[in-house]
């Protein structure tokens, strides 16, 4: 028995020693919080899954000596919930979509960006500057955009699929991988009925709720993070997914095609921003400036081929990106589509109810 004791003690001690030895260096809270240091320090980034390549973050770390502690969310709502529950200095970098920027600004949760430290902002195309959700780009700079498109595995789907409405066809029972995102799925249904994705009309919402139930039996799987997996493997022959996920699935599986719905697609533009409580805004600005570099964006797009607002990067990209309509999405798709808007609390509760009803 004594030996057992000794052994467990020894194990505990070695483990804690190991942990202590390797632990001191990387604990973010012990690092300098001066913020002015050009070298060293660390920032906490809260970003979308499958959106910023690890290699890019690593390259930033080696270049600047700033460590990036990245954690990931799968929807704007998840980001918002986390920002609300954590202490205000928990994150230094976030990557909200259009409507979420507006919501965070309205609650005074974002820091105004110091553009004197963002010289690479000039790389952003004029059409992406001064967006409706953040006039004058006071709080945000664009990173990537895209649509929630339809993926069709033509080897398995013989019927023609042209619109969001086609996804409701009972012939497609149990074959769709859909985004696990309430606004996107409810938006899809709204568009299929000819409504706005942001409707607050009670009658329209009732119609959406009813229509959505017919989609339930067609959805096999909800996956916002990597819907391409189920598409590539053939587990799902149809997908409602972010455009780059579909583009990547197309690269892997030649049977897969992207369809931009005739009703006009769900559009999004994701943007870098800094929470107001961040104590390391200078480091965060360095990070954003690095992400705005043309060369950085080329690396990003190689891994996550979304729509690129960085004009300087566009010049460096080859045909495999610029010529691919799933990656470099045509302007008319954007002209026809719709962005998400914020809802009042009562409407939001209604949306949540519709969503729960779908997911039960």
């Amino acid at each position, binding site marked *: 028995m004594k030996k*057992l004791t000794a052994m467990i003690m020894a194990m505990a001690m070695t483990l*804690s020693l190991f*942990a202590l030895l390797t632990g001191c260096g990387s604990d973010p809270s012990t690092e300098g919080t001066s913020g002015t240091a050009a070298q060293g320090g660390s920032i906490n980034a809260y970003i979308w899954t499958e959106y910023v390549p690890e290699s890019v973050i690593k390259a930033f770390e080696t270049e600047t000596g700033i460590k990036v502690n990245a954690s990931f969310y799968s929807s704007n709502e998840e980001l918002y919930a986390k920002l609300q529950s954590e202490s205000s200095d928990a994150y230094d970098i976030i990557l909200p979509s259009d409507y979420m920027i507006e919501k965070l600004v309205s609650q005074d949760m974002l820091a105004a960006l110091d553009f004197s430290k963002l010289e690479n902002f000039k790389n952003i195309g004029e059409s992406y500057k001064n967006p409706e959700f953040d006039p004058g780009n006071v709080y945000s700079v664009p990173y990537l955009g895209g649509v929630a498109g339809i993926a069709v595995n033509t080897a398995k789907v013989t019927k023609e699929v042209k619109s969001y409405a086609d996804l409701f066809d009972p012939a497609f029972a149990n074959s769709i991988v859909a985004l696990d995102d309430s606004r996107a799925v409810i938006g899809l249904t709204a568009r299929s009925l000819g409504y706005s994705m942001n409707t607050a009309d009670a009658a329209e919402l009732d119609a959406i709720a009813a229509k959505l139930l017919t989609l339930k039996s067609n959805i096999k799987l909800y996956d916002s993070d990597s819907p391409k997996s189920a598409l590539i493997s053939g587990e799902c022959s149809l997908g409602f997914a972010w455009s780059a996920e579909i583009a990547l699935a197309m690269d892997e599986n030649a049977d897969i095609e992207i369809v931009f719905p005739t009703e006009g697609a769900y559009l999004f533009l994701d943007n870098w921003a800094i929470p107001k409580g961040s104590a390391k805004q200078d480091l965060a600005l360095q990070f954003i400036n690095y992400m705005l570099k043309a060369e950085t964006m080329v690396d990003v797009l190689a891994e996550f081929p979304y729509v690129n607002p960085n004009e300087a990067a566009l010049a460096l990209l080859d045909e495999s990106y610029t010529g691919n309509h799933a990656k470099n999405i045509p302007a008319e798709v954007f002209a026809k589509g719709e962005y998400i808007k914020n809802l009042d609390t009562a409407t939001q509760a209604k949306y949540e109810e519709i969503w729960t009803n779908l997911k039960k």
Partner: protein
Amino acid sequence: MNKKLKKRIFKVSGTSFCALVYAFLFLPIVVIVTNSFNATTTKPYQTWKGFTFDWYVRLFDGSNASLLDSFKNTIIIAVTSTLLATVIGTLAAVGMYRYTFRGKSVIDGMLYIPVVIPEIVIGIALLTIFALVNVPRGMLTLILSHVSFSIPFVIFNVRARLAGYDNSIEEASMDLGAGRIGTLLRITLPVLTPGILGGALLAFTLSIDDVIISKFVAGNTYTFPLKVWDSIKSGVSPAVNALSTLILIGTIVFVVLTQSNLLKSEKRKSFKKKRKAR
């Protein structure tokens, strides 16, 4: 003859039933270990692309630093919370066994709460209170949470040991002039050791595998389970499988060593007993 045959059939079917259950328990382990040798480099790393040791190399070449960091966090949290829970829990078990005081039944009842209530409720309860008093979420909150859910298990284990404990030795010790603390250290603790160790081991096991409570109180800190949770979203990298395989091998080696030691010392004890009996 017939009876014998029947017995035989019974035995064979019993053995094969057990084998099937073991197969059920070990099947995912086989999948995990196999996939750690998968040469695939494309997400979601599901298709078999040939055999390689690469992922074990990549685990330590710096490309998986965040994964190793998360594992380190898990170990720090598990060791710290186990030590704290074991000390606090052992003291409490002894105190509650020995003394009568007001509120004892309240404490006794409260001990069962973390044990029976679903972890998610504990998780959100801790989250709300940490948010209320504005404790930054991270290592500290993780350790506090893990201490709170593992203490009862330590107490139950020690208490089980105390149930068969003979008070008179302690009294004798005190009668012979040893103080309370001396008695505690020299008499009580050694007797309780197996219970304490059992409790500690349980606390450690619960801590390293906890995902539900950690998910709510971790803030932007990653533990190994939380890292796995994140990687499941986009396809688990074989590097995670490789690390899991190494952990598994480590625990098996540990068990084999301690168990064989345990067996040996048990044997020695029974041998001594026999000799004494003569």
